């Protein structure tokens, strides 16, 4: 763990079986529940594929905002993604949900935490929801522009691929393979209603309204561009969403 001159502790590391998962952990030195206020640990569940590449900066900036608000924050790559072992079609959806659980366990190891939060962006939102519903010990769940309908997500990926090539490809989205098993998993993914037991409090952050009547869900509509479609060099940063998520996770209020 490295401590910077400004008192930030940062650590890239590997975890999971045989160190097959890549993770990055950060917090401010001195972050402690003894100093008053809840000590919150956060796992950020990132998108996959090209959306993961495009959203890396947004997730990093969200992690920084949460860290500076007093949280310990863990970002990680699922099996077959980012720096983790394997290729994306090596994994099944179920494996990725398990990876979220592994990340939560790794975060707990770095605790203790008085509050646990998951933030899931795009498909990461579905994975965070499934993991939280299974674990039943998540205090706060944030679903950020979540992709909760797998068939619809596959259509979106096909549209993104076709935007570059002119034609959709069922086996690839912009440099990332979609294997038959993963496609089958995504086709079967349909979280029409977020399980109410997933977390004590749930916040959905999205730009366009979607009907989802599962209480107690709080909703925040934010404007701005669909940053998961912007190339990294365009440096599109969803500032308002980042600030709002950090405030809701740490203070429980929507700003």
């Amino acid at each position, binding site marked *: 763990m*490295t401590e910077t001159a400004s008192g930030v502790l*940062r650590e890239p590391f590997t975890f999971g079986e045989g160190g097959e998962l890549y993770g990055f952990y950060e917090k401010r030195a001195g972050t402690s529940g003894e100093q008053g206020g809840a000590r919150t640990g956060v796992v950020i569940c990132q998108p996959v594929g090209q959306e993961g590449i495009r959203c*890396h900066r947004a997730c990093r900036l969200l992690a920084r905002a949460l860290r500076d608000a007093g949280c310990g924050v863990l970002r990680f790559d699922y099996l077959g993604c980012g*720096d983790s072992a394997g290729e994306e079609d090596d994994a099944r959806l179920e494996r990725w949900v398990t990876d979220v659980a592994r990340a939560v366990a790794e975060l707990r190891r770095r605790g203790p935490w008085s509050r646990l939060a998951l933030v899931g962006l795009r498909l990461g939102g579905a994975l965070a929801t499934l993991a939280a519903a299974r674990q039943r010990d998540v205090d706060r769940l944030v679903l950020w522009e979540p992709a909760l309908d797998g068939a619809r997500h596959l259509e979106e990926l096909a549209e993104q691929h076709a935007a*570059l090539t002119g034609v959709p490809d069922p086996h*690839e989205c912009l*440099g990332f393979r979609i294997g038959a098993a993963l496609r089958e998993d995504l086709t079967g993914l349909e979280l029409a209603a977020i399980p109410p037991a997933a977390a004590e409090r749930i916040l959905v952050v999205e730009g366009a309204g979607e009907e989802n009547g599962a209480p107690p869900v709080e909703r925040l509509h934010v404007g701005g561009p669909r940053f998961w479609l912007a190339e990294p*060099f365009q440096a599109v940063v969803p500032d308002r969403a980042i600030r709002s998520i950090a405030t809701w996770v740490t203070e429980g209020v929507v700003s």
Partner: protein
Amino acid sequence: MSERARTFGPANRLVGVVTDPEVAAGDRPAVVVLGAGTVHHVGPSRYAVRLARRLAARGFPTARFDHGGVGDSGRRTDRLPWEESTVRELGEVLDDLAGEGRERFVLVGLCSGAITAFRSAAADPRVVGIALINAQALDLDPDWNRHVLNRGWSRQYWRRSLFSADSWKRALTGRIQYRRLAAVLREQVVQRVTRARVAAVTEDVGGRLAGFVERGGRALFVSSAGDHAEDYRELVLGAVEDGRPGIRSVTVEGSDHTFTLLHDQRRLLDELERWLVEGWGADARTGPVA
């Protein structure tokens, strides 16, 4: 193969991943994959990760990392310009890898990474090879770059547009970029004013490349057909003695600037792997790349 996340630099501010082959194959140089623009260290479409694992199977250790303020690396607190800070940070990474016993390095850079690789190669004797992928702006002189880019646009207009039915259709429907076309034509008229300066920069860039290969370095230029990198490559290699050994040039048809699609990325990785194996020893188990 094993991979480990680590930090680099005197303040441990830079973050990256080192990939070590299962079997160390002789005295292979370590391959360092530089960041491309604002994409984090996995590279566009994760190419840096796939390249590292391919090379590990060939006995090459690799490292990939984020420059300051990009990906997982911390921000710089000084005001050093980008072209200097990236070279300095690369030097810190090489220093740390040298501390692990690595003595020679091959740099792989795509887009902005190619600029850093080229600048470092001229100054760091530990660098024995550079793979420049879609390299543009090998010198930052604005007149020189404007000249090269205008050459490229001019070639597109005169060679393709005049003979393209689609281009005429776009002209008639108002979709041609008339401002850019006017700028290109205007630039060609005033070009003679900056011709001496352009020649001087070209000679300087060519000289740096020539100096690198003269001391035993190897250079690979990979360009996507139609990318402005082709224009830079043509100009720079034109300033270097014809047929100079140690320089290879490859054009990949149909790919975009960052080799986004799987098919294009595979071709890029094939070229890189072939060049590395041919340059620094065939694989004892499987032989050269077919």
